[in-house]
C-alpha cells in the first residue's frame, strides 16, 4: 500500500487511511475539520476515500503518475480499462446459454404431443364450462389417450361423458385412471363426478328392474314408475324421452287406451324414425283396427311393419325381433283379438317358448 502525506498536518499515512476532499489529501483526524471549513466557505463537501492513482484500481499493477486511463474516481491500466469498457461474456457462459437455447428448442419439439393434448384438454374444459358436453368429449378423449393418469382430464372426461349420457366412456375413463384412485377426493370436481356416477348407476339399477317388470303382465304401471324415477335421477340417459314413452305405451296398452298408445307411438316416430318406432306404430294401429274394424288402420299397420323391416337394414337381430312381432300382429289383425305377448306365447308357442 502506498504512503501519502496529509496536506493539513503533513503526517505520512498509508493510502488506506487517507481521504480526498476537493482535490486535497487528508489524514483521518484532519478531514472532519477540513470538511467543516469547506462547508462554511460554501465549497462542495464530498469526502471520498483516497485512491492511489499510481496503481491500477482493479489489478494493482503499477502504472505511475499520469499512466493508464482515468475511469471515474479511479485509474486503470490499459488492459483493465478495455475490460471495464466492454466486459466480455466468459466462454463457459456463452456455451451454457447456447446449451440452454438448444434445450429449449428440444423441449418445444419433445413437448409437441403435450401441447396438443393440453390444447385438447383446455378446449374440452371450455366446452364443458359452456355446457356443450357432447362436443367436449372428442377433445377430452384425445387427451386421455396420452395422459390416462391425469386427474383433471379423467374428471372432465367422466363429467362430459356422464352429462351427455355416455356412461360407457365414463366407466372406461374412471376405471382406467390409476385403478379408479384420485389424488384429492375432497375436490369439488371429484365429488361432482362421484355424484353423477352414483346417479347414473342408481338409474340403471331402476331401469333394470323396470325391464324385468315390463315383461310381466299387470306390472306395466310399476315398471313405468321405476323408469320415470330413473330418468328423474339421471335425465341424461340416452333417448330418455323415447324410453319413458315406451313404458307409458305399455301402461296405455294395459289400460286398453289405444288412442294414447297410438299418439305416443307416433310422437316417438316423429322424434326418432327407426325400425323400432315404426313397429310400435304398427302395433298401435293394429290395436285400433281390432277395436274399430276400420280397415284404414289395418292398411297403415301393415305399411308401417313393411317400413320397420326396410329400416332394419338387414340387421339380423332386428329382423328376428320383427319376425316374432309380425306373427303376433297378423293374429291381432286377422282375429281382432288383442292379447299380450305372454298370453300369445302361452296360447301358440307353448310354455318352452313363452319362458324365453
Amino acid at each position, binding site marked *: 500500500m502506498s504512503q501519502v502525506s496529509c496536506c493539513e498536518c503533513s503526517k505520512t499515512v498509508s493510502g488506506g487511511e487517507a481521504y480526498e476532499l476537493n482535490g486535497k489529501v487528508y489524514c483521518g483526524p484532519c478531514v472532519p475539520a477540513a470538511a467543516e471549513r469547506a462547508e462554511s466557505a460554501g465549497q462542495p463537501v464530498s469526502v471520498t476515500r483516497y485512491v492511489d492513482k499510481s496503481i491500477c484500481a482493479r489489478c494493482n499493477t503499477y502504472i505511475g503518475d499520469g499512466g493508464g486511463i482515468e475511469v*471515474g474516481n479511479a485509474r486503470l491500466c490499459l488492459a483493465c480499462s478495455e475490460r471495464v469498457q466492454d466486459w466480455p*461474456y466468459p466462454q463457459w457462459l456463452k456455451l451454457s446459454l447456447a446449451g440452454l437455447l438448444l434445450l429449449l428448442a428440444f423441449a418445444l419439439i419433445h413437448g409437441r404431443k403435450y401441447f396438443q393434448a393440453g390444447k385438447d384438454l383446455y378446449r374440452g374444459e371450455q366446452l364443458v364450462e359452456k355446457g356443450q358436453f357432447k362436443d367436449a368429449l372428442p377433445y377430452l378423449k384425445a387427451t386421455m389417450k396420452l395422459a390416462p393418469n391425469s386427474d383433471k382430464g379423467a374428471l372432465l372426461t367422466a363429467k362430459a361423458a356422464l352429462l351427455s349420457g355416455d356412461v360407457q366412456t365414463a366407466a372406461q375413463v374412471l376405471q382406467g385412471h390409476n385403478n379408479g384412485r384420485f389424488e384429492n377426493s375432497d375436490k369439488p370436481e371429484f365429488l361432482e363426478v362421484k355424484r353423477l356416477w352414483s346417479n347414473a348407476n342408481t338409474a340403471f339399477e331402476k331401469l333394470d328392474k323396470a325391464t324385468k317388470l315390463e315383461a310381466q303382465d299387470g306390472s306395466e304401471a310399476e315398471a313405468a314408475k321405476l323408469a320415470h324415477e330413473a330418468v328423474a335421477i339421471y335425465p341424461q340417459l340416452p333417448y330418455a324421452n323415447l324410453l319413458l314413452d315406451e313404458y307409458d305405451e305399455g301402461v296405455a296398452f294395459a289400460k286398453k287406451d289405444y288412442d294414447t298408445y297410438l299418439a305416443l307411438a307416433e310422437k316417438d316416430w316423429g322424434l326418432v324414425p327407426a325400425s323400432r318406432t315404426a313397429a310400435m306404430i304398427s302395433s298401435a294401429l293394429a290395436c285400433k283396427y281390432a277395436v274399430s274394424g276400420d280397415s284404414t288402420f289395418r292398411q297403415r299397420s301393415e305399411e308401417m311393419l313393411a317400413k320397420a323391416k326396410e329400416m332394419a337394414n338387414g340387421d339380423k337381430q332386428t329382423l328376428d325381433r320383427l319376425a316374432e312381432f309380425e306373427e303376433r300382429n297378423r293374429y291381432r289383425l286377422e282375429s281382432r283379438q288383442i292379447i299380450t305377448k305372454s298370453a300369445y306365447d302361452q296360447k301358440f308357442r307353448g310354455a318352452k317358448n313363452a319362458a324365453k
Partner: protein
Amino acid sequence: MFFIPGQVIALLTFPGVIIHETAHLFFCKLFKLKVFNVCFFRFGNPAGYVIHETTENFTAMFFVSLGPFMINTLLCVIFCTAAFLPVWELQVTDPLAYFYYWLGLSIGMHAFPSTTDLSHLWKAAPALAKKGNLLAILSLPLSAVLVVLNYGRVIWADLGYGIAVGVLGPLAIFRAFARM
C-alpha cells in the same frame, strides 16, 4: 416454515443466480456502463454480483436494476411452460419435464433485484415521475412491491414468486392458446 441456509438454496438453484447476473451484465453492456467486476456464482452472500459504474441515465438505471427481474421472469415462464402440461395437467412421468421445471423455478426464484439496486431506482424515480417519465412512474410501485417481496424472502417469497410465475404464466398461455 423451515430454515435452509441461503448458500444451500443458491447451490440448488444456481442457474437462476447465473442468469440474474448475466442479465445485469447484458444491460450494463447495452447501456455502455463500465463494469468493474462480475461474479456469476459463488458460495457466499450475495451468491453473485456485478459491480458497475453509477449512471444518471434513468433508463439505463431502470433496465440494469430491473432487467434481471424481467429476464428471469420471462425465462421462468418459458421453461415452466415446456414442463407445465406434463407435470401439472397431464400427470405424465417425463424426467425431462421435471428437469425443465427445476430449471424454470430456479430461474424464477432469483428474479428479485437486490435492495441495493432498488434503492438507487427509488431515490431517482420520484423527481422524474413528477416530470412524467413513464419508466419512473412504472418503477415506483414496482420497486415498492419488490422491496417488500425481497424482505419476504425469509418466508420463501422468492420461491412463491417462482411457483406463481411458473404455474400461472403457462396456465394463462395455454388457456389463451386453447381459445384460438
